[in-house]
């Protein structure tokens, strides 16, 4: 952010908070290019697993909940993180959570 700040951080906490905000702005830009809003990468490793919508249809340029890609991406571990991998560590994840929208509270994998 090169814009001049009209709110100046004084203590360390304030500086940390402003730094967080800077970080947020940059990463939002990096995930999307366009128009049309094409996703540049499916998820970053620390996101929950959002998939951006590159189509001009709703939700425009926005993310949709990872719940709709959970069964395919868990199990075979398509995502690098945040889902139980059925191939190695959590072969039985679907026993806890056969229906993610209904059973997400049951997930105990870590």
């Amino acid at each position, binding site marked *: 952010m090169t814009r001049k700040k009209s709110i100046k951080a004084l203590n360390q906490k304030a500086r940390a908070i402003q730094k967080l905000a800077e970080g947020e702005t940059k990463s939002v830009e990096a995930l999307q290019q366009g128009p049309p809003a094409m996703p540049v990468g499916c998820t970053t490793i620390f996101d929950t697993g959002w998939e951006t919508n590159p189509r001009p249809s709703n939700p425009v340029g926005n993310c949709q909940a990872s*719940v709709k890609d959970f069964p395919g991406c868990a199990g075979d571990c398509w995502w690098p993180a945040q889902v139980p991998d059925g191939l190695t560590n959590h072969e039985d994840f679907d026993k806890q959570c056969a229906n993610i929208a209904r059973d997400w509270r049951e997930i105990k994998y870590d």
Partner: protein
Amino acid sequence: MNDYKPHIRLLLALVSLLLSAGVYAKDMFYYIGNEMIQVIDGDSDAIVADIPVDGWLRDSEFSADKKFLFAVANRHILTKVDLAANRVVATADVNSDGWDRFIYGFDLAPDGKTAYVILLSRKTRQGEAVVGTPQLAQIDIGDGHIIRSIDVPWSSVSIATVKNASEVLVIGKDIVKVDTSRPEMRTTGTYPMFSKHWNILPLWDYTDENGGVYMVNYYTPDVMGLLSIDTKTGKISDMPLDGPPVFAYSVIRSPDKKKVYAVMDELSVIDLASHSYDAVIPLHTGTAYAVNISSDGKKVYTTGGGSVTTIFDTRTLKPVKVLQMQTDGMDLRRLTY
């Protein structure tokens, strides 16, 4: 758990009678889920049976005699479902000798006793991971043991058995042709895709529903196209489509061979004659992995991803029914009597 066993048997008996008279075809749809397969009656579009299984299911295929459904659980357990009794009657594990194996792609062989699969494998040796090379393998579906195998390239995830399974086409970055007609399998050629900058995710196989045509969508940097393999002749053809690409996980051809339906966040209708898109309809129920179609071409079924099956009227392209499935799932398969 719904169990309409007696009802089904009677119905099937009636159906076979009618079929032998050439009057009408009866569709049954099988929802391939987690820990469960659910049976949908293709006339009433009602869920008529729940079949508990152990594990998360991926590839599946019906036996030629339509009596059984084979589905792979957890990528290594071959699960055999009796379709009259609507229950699992046998399982076979391909893991052995300390190897963890992972099945991608599954085609039953004409002998009814074996199947062709792609196997990835790994084991641990003295605390270190040992990764096997990908194989096209012919396995015994009774006990899961490997009869014979051949190395195939990395990224192979799907197969098409062609020419009465005398040849197996292995689809990955390219298509590798494997001659299986002799005791020892051998590679005979490659159909290039990677060098053409093609991108492909061939995880849903509706060869049987398509009447013997293996069809998947591929992407170039500019367009989406349809890759088809005629499993009778082994001929591979591709059809790039006009217009901005739609996004699709899976595609299926209409019974009249005029249209192809593709699904991801929308249901897209592709006209094969003009190789362009007729319509793109957002799925109000959200992303779906799988698409299937009634044998009369009047209804399209989208499902997978979440736990919802949305049924469309192909004439109006409007959703006519939404079924809440018990579990999340991968696929929907059609068996037509």
